[in-house]
């Protein structure tokens, strides 16, 4: 390929005008309380913390901070509900409550999507088309299991565990709440859930929906707070199970805290997924898969394809196609319907990403970043990639959780399998090849809980999700997702 051929230009001749989602019918409360025992109530110590819009660093709302007494109240309500109404009604009727939640989410989907974008920074197109519909779908799917548990586990009569404590992250706030609450309720448990500190609002809107659906008081309690609130839940003696999605480090400390107790657990932790492009892959579509894998959701995805492996024979070609494709990515105001990459969720996360970018440069990898205008305020990171990365570089080993891709090459199948598996993580992986038998071989050999062949970042309520090794244990979604919430002995 001649290097004299000019790269194609994608911007400057016909650019998108702003297409901002209207905030007309929206109202975010100035202050949100804790949702305990079917009511919104003030935190006993009357402490609040701000929720910031990462696009403009403005405060959106004040969120209640649950402390020890509040957590006790929530757990006690959940226990009372479990011992009372929630266990007394038939599974059939339980299902109907969960169906109601799904339907109401669908009715309020626009509002939820906008709030999700304001609070978390993700593009409105993503909240609207992925986050909210998947959240509704999760509730709908698990509602259908409530009265069918006897078919799920041969020779067992499943029983709920009791009160489950759930702690969720900030990257898919409402969707994560759905992933946790839906199976817990379907299996007959009651819930105490803590949303992430920087993204509490949609969880609280969900609380309003739960109230509207007339769920018996105490069945779902949503208590906002920070890491200390999370600790209180983890250590509470009357919680039967902890479900946590978040960083591997915090996951490890939770496991330490509950060791020696009878508490059950599921952990859905970090990842450093290998996304593997073979020479016989449909390359343009594979490039789209690379983009989806690492730049979708600003790279704040535990299963992000953050390590790209390109078979050497097509390395230059794929790199050229990738850089060309990146030129059409729009970075900016997440409320703009054309934005592909929104704001980084928080100041801390941006600092972390910047730190890794510096490390990458220092360790000798070559950096390429999309040349785009970034807004003056807010937290932003343009899509970034590093080439000439080796297996031992920090950026190839540690989870960055941002739109930063580390690119390596490989020659043979065996070589890439070894490199892909050479990590303490094992959440997901991607394989791109036109040859079915090769795809299945890779699927068999890669040590990850989710393998995407010729696609990436696809989620469905029926498809089990979870990791190997330090990416966690337990599965969410599908029939397998019932298991962690049931006693099958």
């Amino acid at each position, binding site marked *: 390929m001649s290097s004299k051929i000019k790269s194609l230009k994608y911007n400057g001749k016909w650019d998108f005008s702003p297409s901002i989602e209207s905030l007309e019918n929206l109202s975010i409360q100035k202050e949100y309380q804790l949702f305990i025992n079917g009511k919104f109530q003030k935190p006993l110590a009357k402490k609040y913390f701000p929720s910031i819009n990462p696009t403009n660093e403005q405060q959106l709302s004040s969120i209640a901070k649950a402390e020890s007494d509040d957590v006790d109240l929530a757990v006690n309500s959940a226990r009372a509900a479990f011992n009372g109404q929630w266990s007394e009604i038939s599974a*059939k009727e339980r*299902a*109907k409550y969960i*169906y109601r939640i799904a339907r109401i989410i669908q009715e309020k989907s626009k509002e939820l999507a906008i709030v999700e974008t304001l609070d978390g920074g993700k593009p409105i197109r993503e909240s609207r088309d992925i986050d909210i519909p998947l959240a509704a*779908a999760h509730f*709908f*799917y698990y*509602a*259908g*299991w*409530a*009265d*069918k548990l006897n*078919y*799920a586990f041969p020779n067992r009569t499943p029983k709920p565990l009791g009160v489950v404590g759930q702690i969720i992250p900030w990257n898919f706030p409402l969707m994560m709440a759905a992933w946790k609450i839906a199976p817990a309720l379907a299996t007959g448990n009651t819930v105490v859930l803590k949303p992430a500190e920087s993204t509490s609002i949609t969880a609280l809107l969900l609380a309003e929906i739960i109230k509207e659906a007339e769920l018996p008081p105490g069945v779902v309690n949503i208590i906002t707070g920070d890491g200390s609130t999370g600790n209180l839940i983890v250590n509470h003696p009357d919680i039967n199970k902890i479900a946590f999605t978040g960083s591997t480090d915090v996951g490890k400390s939770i496991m330490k805290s509950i060791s020696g107790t009878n508490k059950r657990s599921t952990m859905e932790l970090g990842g450093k997924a290998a996304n593997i492009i073979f020479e016989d892959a449909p390359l343009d579509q594979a490039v789209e898969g690379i983009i989806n894998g690492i730049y979708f959701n600003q790279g704040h995805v535990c299963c992000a394809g953050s390590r790209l492996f390109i078979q050497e024979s097509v390395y230059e070609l794929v790199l050229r196609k990738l850089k060309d494709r990146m030129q059409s990515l729009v970075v900016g105001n997440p409320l703009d319907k054309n934005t592909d990459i929104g704001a980084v969720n928080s100041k801390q996360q941006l600092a972390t990403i910047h730190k890794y970018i510096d490390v990458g440069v220092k360790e000798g990898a070559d950096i390429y970043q999309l040349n785009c205008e970034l807004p003056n305020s807010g937290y932003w990171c343009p899509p970034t990639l590093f080439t000439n990365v080796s297996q031992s570089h920090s950026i190839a080993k540690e989870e960055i959780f941002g739109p930063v891709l580390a690119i390596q090459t490989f020659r*043979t*199948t*065996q070589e890439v399998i070894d490199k892909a598996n050479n990590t303490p993580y094992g959440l997901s992986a991607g394989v791109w090849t036109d*040859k*079915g*038998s*090769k795809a*299945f*071989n890779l699927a*068999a050999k890669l040590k990850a809980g989710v393998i995407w062949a010729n696609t990436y970042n696809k989620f469905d*309520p*029926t498809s089990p999700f979870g990791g190997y090794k330090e990416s966690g244990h337990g599965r969410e979604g*599908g*029939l397998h997702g019932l298991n962690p919430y049931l006693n099958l002995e």
Partner: protein
Amino acid sequence: MSKRIKVLKTYKIFIDGKFPRTESGRYYQLKKDNISIANVCLSSRKDLRNAVLSARNAFESWSNKSAYNRSQILYRIAEMMEGKKTQFIEELILQGEDSNKSILEIDQSIDRIIYFAGWPDKINPIFGSVNPVASSHFNFTILEPMGVVGIVAPEKISLLGLVSSIIPVILSGNTCVAIASEKLPLCAISLAEVISNSDVPNGVVNIITGSKDELAPHLAQHMDVNALGIKIDNKELKNKMFFQASNNLKRVVDVSKYKIEDSSFESPYIIKKFMEAKTTWHPIEKDFTSTNNY
């Protein structure tokens, strides 16, 4: 002030999402205490033929919908039915049912639809399989819908019976042609109205009324019907149907074995009866590990 004259309802049949009269123009009368309560279409085999045609045309896109989509549509049927409860209760009472039993029957029908609405995306996880064959192949078995199913609905417990005949059949992607209860046909048409309001594509459900003796054998003989779900009390007619179904080896499910009024009816096994298992093989490459032994 003069008394308000009621507008009487015309009961038509339900084919391809529309409500035509029977092409034969015939009718039979439902009477209560010797007073006519309705003129019901006495459908002909041509109506049946049209219905099967419509069901066949609808099969491809209905079975290609995602299981989630079908679940939502079924749930919508329940939502719509809940809204029309009073109409159903009135019709059941008109046909001679007692008031409490009518309420029970409609509640059970709605709840049963909700029960089955949860199954489409759960059948294969439970009954499908990945088979660990001895050769290096990825081998999996999935259950698929059969095609067009002919239904002869129960004579008594007309509403719950019809719902129980139709819903387990269509949830997996089959389409159907149902012959309603001959003596208690009114709810069948109201059910058709609910279905046509529920985003169910045209042709997925077709409901005709008429003489069971006349119509059922045509359903049994039809070469483009893949299966039958029948609840027939008359032994002679039932045996005749089994016999004629052998023409093209239809799968015949005798619904008499199931107790419709009982909640034990609610199980995935009735769904399975209207599905086929397909097994696929695909090689899994095994690669050589090279050793550098220079």
